[in-house]
Structure formats: structure tokens, C-alpha cells
């Protein structure tokens, strides 16, 4: 009798597990990925962006990014352009929000002007690259609905549907590596017509502070235009101890000088 009860409990537990919908499993994975990256506090990184057009001609930009981790709301970030030289010092300050639109300011060093800009333009390209603004903004769990698709060894594939109707995508197919702190290996982007638009592959992953996986290279290929953008990250620093004071309009102006 006792055995039967236990079996029943175990069976119903398995049943419960099976009853977890793909939506619940997808959300669970996204949360696990967020959880795995919690606690980096702040970081700085240098970034080289190489844009390649369909004829193979390239142009480069270099930027420095500072990030401040916030748990109650989305992260704060400050991006400074170092090249091309005519835009050197141009900087953006972004306060990501888990719900609602982000707050964003642009600093133009030639006229010393700080401009609050609309964060409406999510789908537009970031400085002519194949990365849209939304691809580079802080990835908050609340910004998508989820659907678990499949498991291949350590790779978990999840469909993410953006909640914001201003997103340029109907869905993103994201491959997580559950054995490596749920780091993302690949993202496929489907446009508003649900056609495959871009593939983003991450490579050269390194583990920082024994916890945080960061890729050295992001490679975005646009399948429709045959253009490509490669981001190379260097000099990751997780010991900078930045605070809210380093993410103000005053700090924005200072960074652009």
C-alpha cells in the first residue's frame, strides 16, 4: 500500500513535470540564464565593430561600454564612440526598464549638447550596423514571452516573442548552453513577415570571476542583405566598482570629452 502511494506520488510528480508547458519551460530557462549572470555589479569593455557590406568592403568603429547591473529595474549603460574620428566622443546613456520604454540621452561633443532621445526606434540599425538597437539593449526577462522548442545535448532552444509591438521581430530562436551557465550560443531573428532575417553567433567565450561567461566575438549575419557586422570585445573589467553616479548626464558629458 505504502509502495503504491509512493509510486502514485512519483508518477504524479513526473506527470506534473510533463505537464509543464513549453511556455513555462521557456520562461524557466530565460530566468535561469538571468540568474546565472546575476551579481556582476558593473563592468567595462572595449569594443571593435567591423561592418561588412555585401561586396566585402569593411568599415570600423570602436567604442567603450560601461554597464551597471540593477536588479529591481533594467541595467544602465554608457557607450562612448572612440572612432571614426568625426564622431569621437559621441556618447549615449541608457536606463533600461523592465516594463515600458527605456530612457536614453545622446551627447554631441562638438556642440556640448545632451539630448534626450526617443527610445522608440528599436528596430533601426545601430550606427549603420546589422545590430538593431534592441539587439544591444539589456536583455530583460520581462521583454519577451517564451516557448521551449527542443533540447540537443546541452543546448536548449527557446523561442522568444517580443512583447513590444515596436520590435522589428516576430520571434527570436535562442540557443542556450545549460552546462555553461546558460550562456547564449546563437540567436536567429525572424522579421515581421516571419522570414529569417539575421543570425547572431557568439564565440570565444571566457569565464570571468568564475561565474560570468562573456563572448569575445559577436557575429551578426543578415541573410536578406548579405551584410555582416562583427563585434570584438576586449579588456573586460569586472572590478571597476561603478555606481549610479557614473551613469548620470554629468558623467555622460565627462565621458565624451
Amino acid at each position, binding site marked *: 500500500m505504502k509502495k503504491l502511494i509512493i509510486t502514485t506520488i512519483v508518477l504524479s510528480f513526473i506527470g506534473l513535470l510533463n505537464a509543464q508547458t513549453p511556455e513555462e519551460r521557456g520562461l524557466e530557462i530565460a530566468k535561469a540564464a538571468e540568474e546565472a549572470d546575476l551579481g556582476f555589479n558593473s563592468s567595462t569593455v572595449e569594443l571593435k565593430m567591423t*561592418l561588412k*557590406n555585401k561586396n566585402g568592403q569593411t*568599415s*570600423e568603429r570602436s567604442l567603450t561600454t560601461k554597464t551597471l547591473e540593477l536588479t529591481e529595474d533594467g541595467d544602465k549603460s554608457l557607450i562612448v564612440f572612440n*572612432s*571614426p*574620428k*568625426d*564622431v*569621437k566622443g559621441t556618447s549615449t546613456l541608457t536606463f533600461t526598464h523592465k516594463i515600458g*520604454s527605456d*530612457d536614453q540621452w545622446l551627447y554631441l561633443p562638438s*556642440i*556640448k*549638447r*545632451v*539630448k*534626450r*532621445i*526617443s527610445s*522608440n*526606434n528599436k*528596430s*533601426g*540599425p545601430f*550606427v*549603420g550596423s546589422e545590430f538593431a538597437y534592441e539587439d544591444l539593449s539589456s536583455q530583460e526577462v520581462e521583454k519577451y514571452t517564451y516557448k521551449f522548442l527542443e533540447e540537443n545535448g546541452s543546448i536548449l532552444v527557446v523561442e522568444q516573442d517580443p512583447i513590444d509591438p515596436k520590435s*522589428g521581430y516576430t520571434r527570436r530562436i535562442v540557443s542556450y548552453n545549460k552546462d555553461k551557465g546558460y550562456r547564449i550560443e546563437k540567436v536567429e531573428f525572424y*522579421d515581421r513577415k516571419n522570414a529569417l532575417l539575421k543570425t547572431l553567433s557568439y564565440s570565444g567565450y571566457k569565464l570571468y570571476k568564475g561565474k560570468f561567461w562573456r563572448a569575445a566575438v559577436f557575429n551578426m549575419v543578415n541573410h536578406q*542583405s548579405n551584410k555582416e557586422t562583427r563585434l570584438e570585445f576586449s579588456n573586460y573589467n569586472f572590478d571597476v566598482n561603478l*555606481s549610479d*553616479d557614473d551613469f*548620470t*548626464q*554629468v*558623467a555622460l558629458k*565627462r*565621458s565624451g*570629452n
Partner: protein
Amino acid sequence: MKFQNPLLQILIAIIVTLQINVSAQTDKKNKTITQDFELEVETEYRYFIDEAQFDDQQDHFPAIAFLPEYNLQWNDGYESLNFTGFLRIDKDDNRTHWDIRELYYQKANSNWEVSLGLKKVFWGVTESNHLVDIINQTDAVESFDGEQKLGQPMVQFTLTTDYGNFDIFYLPYHRKRAFSGKKGRLRFPVIIDRDDITYQSRAKEWRQDIAFRWSHYFGAFDVGLSHFYGNGREPLFTINSNGELNAFYPIIHQTGLDLQATHNAFLWKLEAIYRSADAQDFFALTAGLEYTFSNIDGNGLDIGLLGEYLFDDRDELVLNALQNDAFFGSRIALNDTQDTSLLIGGIKDLKTNSSIFSLEASRRIGSSWKAEIEARFFSNIDANEFILSNFSQDSFFRLSVSKFF
């Protein structure tokens, strides 16, 4: 560019040691020094399409400008020395000029920042006119839109709090505005020598001026409140009984408000000032909106629409002649690899119908060149416009090519 010259390291070490900084003993300061030098060389050609209104005025103005920039940072960027120079050589003698746009030392801490030296500061939100912006003198011979400024000597202290940013400015020296010379366009029939413009203040340019600004943001709103007390940046023009133009810099109080609400693709903007002097009190405002259709073609094309209304109590004595005008414009950005952008617009006087149309376009060429085109057209200028009537023949094209080293 990283820099590890031992001499400089020592120099910086001395500066750091000299500072009364109690926490320096406990903080492990980053001793990395970074320095950066950049030079922009700009060749420019301005062509005025209409026959000159006044004697000696020319049509063609080839020019060249040099803009060196040097920046030294240490203490993780919390301390820096910044320099921006400017030299313009032009056919018009008065437009041939040099300036130290910036040369200041800056020290920042977690929630405060102090700058000492010549610096540029911008305040404001609107596009067609910059009412609130008052710290720096306009480099009036350099640009038509007034966005080029002369370096202003100052001590600026900024405090960041939960209640916004507080800026206090101590401005020990006033800089006079330059005006076009004999050969130059965009001038009055008489040539104004900047030295002929006097001051109301007995201390003249050495009057010790102050300014204060509070700025903050609440969700969708960005707000700034400012007050300036000192030598005005705009000279006051009067005509005496002999018909002679007389001009001086009055002592002014100016209170300014700038406000922007950012909602989806809408930017709602307002700038308002109240300026009082012994000779003149007035109110002025610029209010409008900007709406951007972004990524229209799925390829990055942004088209922004701008509309602003400009009002100024001074009526016809307004230096830039924007007393009751409407501005409409469009900002087009391709967001391509070469950052191609275009701004077209027109300002129309609602009473006299005098209009100014403008076009500004720019594009990067390769990785270190940039080309710009600017055009201004004065159309239907009413002969009774006190200021603008002098410019009715001064429609021009400007082409410039810059190389960045």
C-alpha cells in the same frame, strides 16, 4: 592611446600628492594616464549667390580652419585636462580669427565635478533657436545658426543629487561678439568694430558674473531652470538722433526654463526666458515638437518632422529677427555606414512673411574625411525688417571638407 612616459607619471604623481585628498590613502587609485591628440583640418568655400547690398562685400569666400584637440586623463578619467583650439583663415579679415574653445582642468568625484578654465556649456532643447543657452558668447562670424561658441573662462561646480543636478558658474571675464568685416556678408551697412561696443558695467569685461542652473528628469520629462546675472552676451543696438548706430553690452538678469517631454516618437519642447536690464525687459519663448518616423524602409531610414513657434517681446530689435515666427523642418538620417544626414527647414515671419530656408547635409567619406553642405536662402525679406533687411542679398551655399588626423 595609452601613455606611459615616466616624466608625465611623475608630474601627475606630484599633482595627486599635492591634492588635499584624505581618501587617497585608502583608495587604490588607478595611475594609468591616457592622452589623446586629434586635429581636424577643414577647407571651406562659401558662395553668396546674389549681388551684394553694400560696398566692398564679396561673393566668394574660400577659407581654411584648424581644430586641434588634446586631452589628458588620469585617475580613471576622474581628472582631466582638455584643450580645443580653433583657427580660421578667411578672405574676410574679421572672419580670420583664432580662439581657445576649451582649456580646462576637471576633477570629478562620485557626485560632484569641478571645472576650471575656458569651457563650452550648452543648455536647451529646441532646434530653431537657442534662447536659454547663455554661458558662452556666440562666434557670430563662424556660423549663421549661432551654434559655434567662444571659450568662456569659468569655474563650474556641479553637484549631482537625488533632487537633480545643480550647477554654479563663476564667470570672471566677458567676451565680445565679433561681426563681419568690410568684405564680409551678413552684416549691417556700417562695419561694427567689436571694440566700439561698450559696456554698461564700469568693470567692463572684467565684471564678475554668476550663473546657476538646476536640471532634473522625471520619467518622460527633462527640465532645466537657470538664472544668469552679468554682462549680456547680445549687444543692445540703439540708433541716436543722428542716425548713428550705438551698441553696448547691458547688465542683465536672465531666467530661463527648458523643458522636454519624450513620449514614444514625440519630443515636445519648450524654452522660455525673461531678461531684464535697465534699458530693456522682455520675454521670449520657443515651443514645438519633433516626431520621428524611424526605420521606415527597414533599412534604417529615419525621417523626423520638426515644428516650432518663436516669440520674442523685443519685436523688431531681436538680433536674430525671430520675434513671431514659425519654423518647419525635417531631419533625415540614413543611418548608413557613412552617417549620411540632412536637415532642411524654413523659418517664416508670421507678420511680414520674410522667410529663411536652410539646408544642412553631411556625410563621412572613408574613415577620416567628412563633407558638409550648407545653404541659407533669404526670401521675401520685408524692407522694414530692422535687422533682417540687411541680409536680404546674402543667400549662400557653403561646402566644406574636413580631414581628421
